[in-house]
C-alpha cells in the first residue's frame, strides 16, 4: 500500500515537472500511473497527494486552463520552483554553509540539516570543509526535540503545555518566535493566561506540547523579532553591586570592571548585573575571596543562604 502511494507521488511529481502546459485532473487521472478506481476516489487521492507534495515544499501551480470554463483547473510544477538555486555560489561559500549545518548535530534542527546537506552535496560543487577547522561547532546542548513547536509557529497555532516551577502549570501561548541562547532553546510568545509576551525555556516544559487545532489563529506583530526582544530585555535595567575582592584573587571577575584598591588586602570593583541568581553564583564562586558590600538585600540573601536558611 505504502509502496503504491510512494510510486504515485513520484510519478505525479515527474509528470507535473515535465509538462509545459497545465495538466487537468482528468488528464492526470488518465495518464499518471497509480490513479484508479471511482472518480471520487481518484479526486480524494489527488487532493491528498497535492497536500503531501506541498508539505515537502514542492510548489504546485494551479490555474484555470480555459478562460471560458473557470472551474476547469490545470496543474504543473515549474522546474525553477522545484530545483534548488543558490545563485552563483563559490565552493568556499558552500563549504561555509555545510559547516553551519553541521553545527546542528544534536536535536531540534538536525534532521533538516541532514537533508539540506544532502541537497547541497547534489549540486555538483566540490567543497572542502576542512579548510575551516570547524568540525567542533555545536550550537545546542542536548535537549528534547520540539518539532511540533516549529509547526505551531509556522502555522500560527496556539500551543498548550505544562511549565515547571510555575503557579499556573498549564500555559496557553501564541508562539511568536524561537531563540537559541547559550545552548538552550527558548520560546517567546504571547501568554494568553497572563496577557503578555513571555519567554519559556523549552527544557522546562514538562508535558508534551499540544497544538490547538485552529491554524492562522493569531498574527505575530509586524515589528516583532525574537533577537530584538531579547536584546531589549538584556539592556533593560542593570543593577550595580559593589564587591570587595581579595588582592591577587578573583581574576576572572577583574575583567568585568574597574578595580580600585581599598587596603593592603582588598580591592573594590563595581559590577553590573541583571538577575540576582546568576550574579550571586558568579560572586560566591570565589568563596571567602569576594564580599558583597552593596546592595543591602543581596548581602542579606548571601548571609541567609550561607547560614543554611531557605530563600
Amino acid at each position, binding site marked *: 500500500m*505504502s509502496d503504491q*502511494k510512494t510510486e504515485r*507521488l*513520484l510519478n505525479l*511529481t*515527474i509528470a507535473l515537472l*515535465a509538462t509545459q502546459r497545465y495538466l487537468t485532473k482528468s488528464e492526470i487521472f488518465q495518464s499518471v*500511473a497509480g490513479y484508479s478506481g471511482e472518480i471520487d476516489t481518484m479526486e480524494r487521492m489527488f487532493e491528498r497527494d497535492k497536500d*503531501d507534495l506541498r508539505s*515537502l*515544499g514542492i510548489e504546485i501551480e494551479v490555474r484555470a486552463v480555459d478562460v471560458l470554463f473557470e472551474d476547469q483547473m490545470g496543474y504543473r510544477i515549474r522546474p525553477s520552483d*522545484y530545483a*534548488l538555486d543558490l545563485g552563483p555560489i563559490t565552493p568556499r*561559500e558552500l563549504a*561555509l554553509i555545510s559547516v*553551519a*549545518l553541521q*553545527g*546542528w548535530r544534536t536535536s531540534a*534542527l538536525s534532521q*533538516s540539516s541532514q*537533508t*539540506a546537506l544532502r*541537497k547541497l*552535496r*547534489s549540486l*555538483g560543487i566540490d567543497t572542502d570543509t576542512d579548510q*575551516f*577547522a570547524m568540525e*567542533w*561547532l555545536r*550550537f545546542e*546542548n*542536548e535537549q528534547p526535540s520540539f518539532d511540533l513547536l*516549529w509547526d505551531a*509557529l509556522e502555522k500560527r497555532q496556539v500551543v498548550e503545555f505544562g511549565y515547571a*516551577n510555575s503557579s499556573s502549570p498549564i500555559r496557553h501561548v501564541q508562539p511568536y*518566535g*524561537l531563540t*537559541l*541562547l*547559550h*545552548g*538552550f532553546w527558548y520560546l517567546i510568545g504571547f501568554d494568553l493566561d497572563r496577557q503578555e509576551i513571555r519567554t519559556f*525555556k523549552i527544557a*522546562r516544559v514538562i508535558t508534551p506540547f499540544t497544538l490547538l487545532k485552529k491554524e492562522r489563529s493569531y498574527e505575530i506583530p509586524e515589528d516583532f523579532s*525574537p*533577537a530584538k526582544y*531579547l536584546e531589549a530585555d538584556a539592556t533593560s535595567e542593570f543593577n550595580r553591586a559593589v564587591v570587595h575582592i581579595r588582592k591577587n584573587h*578573583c*581574576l*576572572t571577575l577583574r*575583567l568585568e570592571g574597574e578595580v580600585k584598591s581599598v587596603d593592603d588586602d582588598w580591592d573594590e570593583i563595581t559590577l553590573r548585573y541583571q538577575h540576582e541568581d546568576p550574579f550571586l*553564583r558568579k560572586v560566591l*564562586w*570565589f568563596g*571567602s575571596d569576594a564580599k558583597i558590600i552593596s546592595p543591602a538585600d543581596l*548581602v542579606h540573601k548571601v*548571609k541567609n543562604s*550561607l547560614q543554611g536558611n531557605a530563600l
Partner: protein
Amino acid sequence: MSETALDRASRALDLIPFIVENPGISIEDLATVFGSTPKEITKDLNLLFVCGLPGYSPLELIDLSFDDGYVSVIDAQTLDKPRKLSRREVFAVILGLEGMTSLRAQGDPLRAEIEELRSKLATLISGVNIKIASLKVGTTPTPFLSHIETSLRERTLLDITYLSGHRDTETQRTIRPNFLYVENGFIYLRAFCLTSHGERTFRVDRIIELESKGQASALDFEKALPIKSEVFPTIEIGERSRGFLEENRHLLEIPDDFSYPLATTIAVSDREWLLRTCLGQRGGVSILAPADLATELAQRRAETLALYG
C-alpha cells in the same frame, strides 16, 4: 520506526540527484549518507526504477544501473536537480550562519565573510519569514579563535596566558591544541599542556594572551598521564537548582521520572570546580559523598559567612 509513504517519496526524490552527482556510489555509502539501511535504499531504487513519465515505456522510465551494489543514473527523467530547501532547512542554514557569526569577534575576517554570505542567502530565500527564530551561541567572542583554528590546522604549539576560574590563578602555558567544542554557550579548547604534562580543558574566552610557537615536534606529543580511576562524588540537587541540572545533564545520572531533590553521582574529577559551583548554588546543590569533600564545602561556607561578620 514507521516510515510514511511521504518520507520515502521525499528520500527517493533526493536520491536521484545525489546519485547523478556521485555516479558509481555504493549502496552502502548511500545508506550512510541518507541515514538508512542498504535494504531500504535498494527498495527505494527498485521503486524509482518503475517510475517515470506518462507512457511508462522503457524510454520514459527512470533508468538506473546497479552493478554489484554500485549505482549510477542513466536517465533521471525530470528529477536530476536537487529540490529547493524546505522552510525548516532554510532555518537550519540561516540560523547556523548566525550562530557561526556570534562566535567570532568583530574584525575576524571570517566573521565578515559569513555575515555577507548570510545576507546574500537571505535575499534568495523569499517566502520564509526567517525573523521568527534567532540564535546566539554564547559569550563574548574572543579574538584568539582564528589563531587557535590555524594552530589546529597547522599543528603548531601555542604559548598562552590563561586565567583559571577553577583555581583562580593566572598561568603561562605551552599547549598543543587537540580540538575545540561548545558547551553551554562557551567555547572550550581541549589541548595537551606541555607545562603540566597532561590533557587540559581551557575556556577560550579566558585565554588573555596568545602567541604561536611554531611547528610542534614529535617530542611534544608525549602521552597524557593516565587518569586515575576514581569514584565520583555524590550530590543532591534541590528544585531551585534546576538550571544546574539542565546545564550539567551530561555529567549526571538522571532517571527518566525523577523528582527533586535528586541524589546523583556527578562525573567530575575536579574538586575545585564542584566546591565553587556548590557555593554558588547557595544550598541548591549539596555534597553527600565523599565526606571530606562535604566537610570542605561546609568549611568554605563558614569562611565566606565569616566575611559578613
